[in-house]
């Protein structure tokens, strides 16, 4: 992949990078030329300066939100994966969980945020709860799908070898499920960001959602944009983090660079 280091990477992404820079420049010029007031649409340079200027404020609230997101996500993994294993292995657990989860899934989780804030207060706990609820479902579903994707022949084979259930689980089901599970984790971490921010809009005294709401009420649009940028970077970073973990765990997946088309052997 990174054959020529940074230079190669730049060349590879030249088009998207160029387009991005072009849009920023056009935006800057347009706002300046049309004399659009900052509270409607601030110049990108102004937002950038604000971010540099008030990095301490942004940093503090970023840390707070990131903590909520990660705790919510971690809880949804810690509870979702064992539940999925229960669903795969036990008909009773499956029926009971589906009876609860399926109707529950019809509720937009963000609509539960006001209740959760009522119950858990304005602090960390309520946002963790929203992030957890919204991230939970894709993790359960993807883990169940992954574990059920084992071929019946493989299970016959394993039974015919006298494998203990834990052997079949550790050697076959779990590794088989990992790609699907990581797919679920990626969706879940992105949803956890959404859940946390919505939670902060509804009731909080810290966090990126909170300072954005305050800025919006004060018509401090540059600040609103600053939060959007920080949130985008946070989302990218979390997604990337899960991706890095995925590549560390799933080493056998045929990366495109490894496939050598045309080198066919009988």
């Amino acid at each position, binding site marked *: 992949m990174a054959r020529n280091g940074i230079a190669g990477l730049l060349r590879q992404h030249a088009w998207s990078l160029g387009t991005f820079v072009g849009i920023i420049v056009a935006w800057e010029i347009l706002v300046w030329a049309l004399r659009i007031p900052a509270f409607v649409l601030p110049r990108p340079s102004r937002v950038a300066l604000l971010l540099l200027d008030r990095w301490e404020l942004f940093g503090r609230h970023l840390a707070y939100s990131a903590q909520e997101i990660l705790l919510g996500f971690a809880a949804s993994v810690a509870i979702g994966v064992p539940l999925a294993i229960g669903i795969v292995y036990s008909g009773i657990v499956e029926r009971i969980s589906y009876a609860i989860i399926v109707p529950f899934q019809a509720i937009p989780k963000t609509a539960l945020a006001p209740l959760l804030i009522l119950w858990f207060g304005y602090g960390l706990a309520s946002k963790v709860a929203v992030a957890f609820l919204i991230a939970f479902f894709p993790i359960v579903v993807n883990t169940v799908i992954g574990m059920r994707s084992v*071929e019946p*022949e*493989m299970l*016959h*084979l*394993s*039974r*015919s*070898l*006298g*494998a203990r259930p834990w*052997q079949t689980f550790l*050697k*076959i089901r779990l*590794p*088989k499920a*990992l790609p699907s599970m990581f797919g679920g984790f990626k969706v879940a971490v992105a949803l956890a960001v959404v859940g946390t921010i919505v939670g902060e809009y509804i009731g909080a005294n810290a966090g990126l959602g909170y300072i954005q709401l305050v800025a919006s009420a004060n018509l401090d649009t540059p600040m609103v944009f600053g939060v959007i940028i920080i949130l985008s970077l946070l989302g990218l970073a979390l997604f990337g983090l899960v991706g890095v973990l995925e590549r560390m765990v*799933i*080493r*056998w997946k*045929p990366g495109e660079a490894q*496939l050598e088309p045309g080198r*066919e*052997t*009988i």
Partner: protein
Amino acid sequence: MTSGRSAVSVVLNQLRKTYANSHSPLIALDDVALEVAAGEFVSIVGPSGCGKSTLLMLIAGLLPPTQGTIAIDGRAIVGPYTDVGFVFQRDVLLEWRTVLQNVLLPAEIKHHPKAASRERALHLLEQVGLAGFERRYPYELSGGMRQRVALCRALIHEPPLLLMDEPFGALDALTREAMGFYLLRLWQDRQKTVIFVTHSIEEAVVLADRVVVMSPRPGRIVQTFTPDLPRPRTQMVKGSAHFHEVVDAIRELFRARGFLIEQPSAGARV
């Protein structure tokens, strides 16, 4: 490497298997009686829906028969018989394991000594022409190579009995023929008992000591053929007049009974 536990005999006595479906029970197998001698290579041919796969599941003790008994080496089978090598139409290799690790899976599950198993695995891979591929992953291999790995996996724990469910059915004709001879070579060295299910009459005759023809729904044994072909068998077998006599006789039986011979998906009729 001529060691390994001795082969086992398999005796099926008046086997019947029905599946309780919603309305009428489906009779998969009816009145199946078969004696397979230790070290014998038996092929089972029949049209689709003759319960061939069900039969293998019953022999392995993975499904209970509705009626009748199965005995391996004189002992009745009531639960999974764990001294068996299984090969299926799909190779079902574990994609996160290398070729060598895939072959070693049964030895790991059975906690066999590591060093000895490893040695045996390397030897098996060499015998099927996969020396040098030990560290490759399944996605790097062709269908024929993958199925040869599955074959080695079925033999690593030295089972006295091999159950093969259309193992080469998904391969192209040339690869399929080559696989048959790889199998014969391995069998020649080890003299396992083999029960080999196939759709292909010619494949059955080339490989087996005895060819059992089954009828569709309910699966019954119609007739047994004993091709008198010399061992070890090579490509030359197909040139002999006797080979063609037996194949024609089985084909005639199929025609007389109105069995449809299924065209394998890969278009691979040997």
